[in-house]
């Protein structure tokens, strides 16, 4: 990639992110029905809705 192309890419990136990134609802929600159960088994009960614990076996 030439320097000109790199500069153009940097200028374009913000517009592409605005248009395309994290737009689908799937990015923002659980897509597996047992997600909460699986994460609870791995990390224990969530704190304030966040599974931030250490893995039990780690």
């Amino acid at each position, binding site marked *: 990639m030439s320097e000109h192309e790199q500069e153009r890419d940097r200028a374009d990136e*913000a517009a592409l992110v605005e248009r395309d*990134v*994290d737009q689908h609802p*799937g*990015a923002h*929600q659980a897509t*597996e029905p047992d997600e909460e159960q699986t*994460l609870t088994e791995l990390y224990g009960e969530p704190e304030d809705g*966040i599974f931030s614990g250490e893995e039990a076996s780690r």
Partner: protein
Amino acid sequence: MGSANGMLAEARRSLGMSGRPNTITRDYASRHGDEFLRAAWCDMAVTYWARRSGNAGAVLPRGDRAYTVWHAQDFQKIDRWFSGTTANVDDAKPGDIVFFDWNQTNQVGAIDHVGVVEKALGGGRVQTIEGNTGDQCLRRVRSSSVIAGLGRPDYEDDKPYAWSGEAPAAVLRPGDGGTGVHDLQNALLRAGFQLPVYGADGDYGEETAAAVRVLQRNAGLTVSGIYDAATAAALQRALGGPQEGDEDVPYFWGSVPAGKGRITPISLPGGLFKSIGFTVDNGLAGLPPTKVRVAVHDAKGWYAAKPELVLDSAAKSKVWFSVRDPQSADGISIQRLDDVDVEVAWDAS
């Protein structure tokens, strides 16, 4: 030197981060512009974790990314891309970068979200850490049906390990793992501290924490078991390396390669440097002055210390500036603003 464990440790520290602007978007915006302060930040999170954990070269093979499609293409170009088949997802490694396409096409051009694999669950599923999922950083469970592919970073811990002989600069704590911890353990052993059961195994467990506490007690430091900047200095002294207070001896030094727009991140131990100086030999080579942009990271985040610093050996032998908070400054990023083919040397003390 980075590792998959270091990448994941950094991602875990972001769990629960929410809203924007946040630490991650501010970090990206400091280098690429304020339009990123409130932009979608899933890939900015991956960029942040990679840079903070010393994994930029492995996770960001062609530099910082906020746009997921380009990031996936970066892995394709270096032949470290695995499409999102059930078999490939079952073979996912912790630290793999996972790219999502919600329409089950596995097309790179359709990717709009990204995270990092923390654990392969089997059955075509992985457990991830993702930034900007519901405008938060959360753990998720995802299946191959929504995974377009995986980028596999060439982490340093996949390569033969060799200790540098120095006390590591990064802050480390119980639960951490990877090359930094391996370096710490080797330094402790070389300095005469005991790790009788596990030795240098790369895991910061109770044995390592106990050795760090002994080191801290011997050095008259706060006994926390956490390897921080003051402990790093004490360990380096125990190893016989440069000491704070030595005159005319830079504690840290290096160079910034040429290349327009090139960004060189430098990780430095917080509290052990107050200023950084730059020199060039463009006068000797008959070249024009060169320019760099300097951003400093501290507890308050990134800030541009010098938006444009002109370096010219004919006018001034060394250009210095001081960081605003020496106790908490822990990293510097230098961006070349022109393509003058001259190496910039730096030292911090």
